[in-house]
């Protein structure tokens, strides 16, 4: 039990997917300008990551590994994730239109997102069992959500500030803010 907790805390705080592992930077800079965008993106990401991790994990251990075709992992995972997102979009468009209006715009962005693919690959390369895979797949996007929401809140205050020198506006100050957050998170280093 404690192993699972350590795994989760490690994934969210210590090895945070953005601040420690530098993934998902592109959406971070693009989506974090408004907090409701950040939240929407995070919910969509959590959903897609968890279920596509399940699917790719199942595919790897039930199909690829018994046939010793592990080298197909990267390409198959990309295809599975992409197909899954298409199905999710279809389902939302037909049966949950309100949800589609809220979150549907982020789904195409998530298809080619580093984080979804990363979690799928990690589950396999780190040799997780089913429970560990589940916990990891929930924890990583939660860590992402935490960072991107905090980031968007800070950014909405910084972006409107006219005292900021012109060369720094936009993405430069965003990167420096990320540097400060990364520095703060180094403090979690000895936790696990």
């Amino acid at each position: 039990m404690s192993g699972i907790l350590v795994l989760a805390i490690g994934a969210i705080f210590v090895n945070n997917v953005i601040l420690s592992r530098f993934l998902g930077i592109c959406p971070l800079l693009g989506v974090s300008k408004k907090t409701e965008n950040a939240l929407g993106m995070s919910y969509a990401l959590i959903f897609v990551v968890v279920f596509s991790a399940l699917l790719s994990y199942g595919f790897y251990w039930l199909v690829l590994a018994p046939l010793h075709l592990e080298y197909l992992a990267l390409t198959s995972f990309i295809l599975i994730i992409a197909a899954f997102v298409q199905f999710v979009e279809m389902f939302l468009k037909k049966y949950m239109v309100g949800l589609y209006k809220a979150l549907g715009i982020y789904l195409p962005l998530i298809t080619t997102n580093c984080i979804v693919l990363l979690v799928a690959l990690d589950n396999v390369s780190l040799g997780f069992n089913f429970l560990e895979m589940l916990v990891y797949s929930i924890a990583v996007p939660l860590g992402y959500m935490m960072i991107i929401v905090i980031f968007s809140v800070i950014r909405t205050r910084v972006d409107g500030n006219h005292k900021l020198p012109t060369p720094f506006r936009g993405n430069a100050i965003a990167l420096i803010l990320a540097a400060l957050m990364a520095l703060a998170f180094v403090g979690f280093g000895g936790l696990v």
Partner: protein
Amino acid sequence: MKIKEKFKIITSGIIQGNPTFVLFIGMCAVLAVTNTFSSAFGMGLAVIAVLVLSNVIISLIRKLVPDDIRIPVYIIVIAVLVTVIQMFMEAFTADLAATLGVYLPLVVVNCIILGRAEAYANKNTVLDSFLDGVGTGLGFMAAVSMVSIIREIVGTGAFGFTDPFTNTVLFQVQLFPQQYAISLFVQNAGAFLVLGLLVAVINAVSNKIIKKRELKAAAKKVPAVATQSEAGK
């Protein structure tokens, strides 16, 4: 004249369309592998290879692919290409592949490659797409080189280069003693910091250049206005 136009394609990938400093895509790699110049250089080579090959392939098939399904087709082509190049790298440049780790398949599959395929390769000839791949790849290489040189020199005080194919250290020079180096720069926060500062510097420089150009254009218009008013008189 034609050669000038072709050359323009390359330079626009390095300057006006620089993937890191202008378009802000593919940042994951720039931050993750730039703590030493050798690994940044290796990643730059890999990105150039994948970008050029994918641009050429997609430009070749652009007339065969129905417009509706072009994005899935590109995704598949690029995924296969990246798997092959990853295998090549693990075979011929094993240490580099180990250092780049998971960032090679992850990052290379995403933003930059698909972005260039969608924006350029599916609308232009093979030669133009090849040049665009070279240009954008060189732009990426310039960006990671700048970031990694700053990070390595300020962060460790040393500067060296290791040949990725033979894994021999080509040179290693300690520019100043290590105790004076700011080790923050080779850590995570340093990566964000160096990139943010570089972006700010480049913004400042390009704003100045744009202002100069506008002043020149305004100066050219003034004599025309003067001659018009004289002619009116």
